[in-house]
């Protein structure tokens, strides 16, 4: 006779084990990076330019470069993504064109990031003659995070109850006024969450900036959006593979800063989302 309780216990054990296994790599990455990277972190490391062929000194230009790139990407992707999301949820009828657009967004999300890099190189660097510059890199990153922003914004807009729209319209408020005064304000937290997740993604990617903006080494900070810039992920790649005899501490220190940047962005997104959930009572 089979014992159903024992079968259940075995199944439960394996389910739990698989779930715990997810935590292990995340935990290990964080622990190792903190352990090896934290000792390198000091004010000098964060505020000075690299020295001795990037074997010493700090990573300040890379931090600044990443900051510029992420800001540029969001400046470009947020307005376009948000407007597209509003169109898709509020105006688009369910027809062939809409389905093609939605399919395109899904596929855009699945494109490998190195392909974005090549695309950005061909379009912005070569065709539009922006050269390898912050502008080209930001636009490339912006296109990469568009699907994230559109998808989360669409979700946020759709989660605003239809009854709000209906009441507003029934009060003689036009459709656009309804979207502006009722739909968008109630979707802001969700949109913000998506935006920050997109920011995190843009900050961490190497491939899209490889051909479009990233500089091996720049002694001075970029002066305009048409300058090249250093960036954290690319800098990490460079000091890990291209420059011999870089102290492990410097590499892990750079990884630590990058990881801290991305994780703290995700943390902000999580906090906003949970605050919003608590407030939402409809």
């Amino acid at each position: 006779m089979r014992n159903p309780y024992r079968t259940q216990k075995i199944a439960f054990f394996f389910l739990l084990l698989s779930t715990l296994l997810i935590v292990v790599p995340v935990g290990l990455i964080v622990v190792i990076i903190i352990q090896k990277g934290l000792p390198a972190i000091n004010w000098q490391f964060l505020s000075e330019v690299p020295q001795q062929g990037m074997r010493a000194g700090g990573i300040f230009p890379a931090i600044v470069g990443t900051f510029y790139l992420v800001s540029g990407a969001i400046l470009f992707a947020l307005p376009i993504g948000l407007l597209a999301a509003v169109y898709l949820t509020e105006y688009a009828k369910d027809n062939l064109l809409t389905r093609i657009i939605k399919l395109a967004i899904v596929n855009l999300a699945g494109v490998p990031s190195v392909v974005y890099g090549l695309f950005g190189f061909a379009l912005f660097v070569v065709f539009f003659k922006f050269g390898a510059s912050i502008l080209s890199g930001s636009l490339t990153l912006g296109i990469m995070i568009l699907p994230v922003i559109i998808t989360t914004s669409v979700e946020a807009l759709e989660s605003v109850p239809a009854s709000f729209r209906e009441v507003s319209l029934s009060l003689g408020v036009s459709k656009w006024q309804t979207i502006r005064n009722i739909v968008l304000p109630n979707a802001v937290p969700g949109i913000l969450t998506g935006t920050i997740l997109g920011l995190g993604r843009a900050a961490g990617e190497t491939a899209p900036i490889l051909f479009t903006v990233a500089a091996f080494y720049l002694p001075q900070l970029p002066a305009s959006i048409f300058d090249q810039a250093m960036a954290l992920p690319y800098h990490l790649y460079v000091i890990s593979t291209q420059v011999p005899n870089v102290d492990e501490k410097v590499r892990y220190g750079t990884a630590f800063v990058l990881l801290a940047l991305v994780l703290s962005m995700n943390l902000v997104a999580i906090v906003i989302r949970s605050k919003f959930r608590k407030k939402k009572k409809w």
Partner: protein
Amino acid sequence: MSKIVTKKLNLWYSQFHALKDVHASFEDKRITAIIGPSGCGKSTLLRVFNRMNDFVDGVRTDGEVLIDGEDILNGRTDLVTLRKKVGMVFQRPNPFPLSIYENIVFGKKIHGETKREQLDIIVEKSLKSVLLWDELKDKLNSSALLLSLEQKQRLCIARLIAVQPEVLLMDEPCSTLDPQATARIEELMRELKSNYSIIIVTHNMQQAARVSDDTGFMLLGELIEFGKTSEIFTAPKDRRTEEYITGRYG
């Protein structure tokens, strides 16, 4: 005097014929109830009057709906103006996630009223007309979502009154309320009818009998009988009306 007149009104949802040749006349400053079993088209009829059916895909209307003598079904009708004039109270109380004050001035503000004193007056008047002023005057800035169901429904009526409509369409406004709250909302409707034309859709026949002056009975998209409430409930002319109000189906 007739506020709303429908002539040979037909409506289709794609292939489904939801309203069939509806002829009716809704009087000003009176309460008209539309009764009938679920799916008979009574809510659809209500939503013709403020053109809320426009948002349903594949909807098609035919015939005439005259409000103050003007046909609102033609293409020239300005929906914003129409809906300011013909307001709607929904089945589920649905305040916005805003303060009580902001809920009431929502429509007025968007329609261009910005003076604080003016808005204050509107809030007071609207809340007084739904008998909420004394209860809520000290917490106008607290969230409308914290109110009781009945208070929410009253607030929704106040929010509507604030945009100064002439017709109030009520789509089963009491169906989520308990009997005491229902009785109080009905009392409110009687007070409001001196200033507004009220059309209420209800599946509660007792409610129709209690509150309305005129009643229309609908079945499968047709307006079977329309007349004084006292006559419909005591001496219905049509056999189907009689069967429905005596509870043989519905």
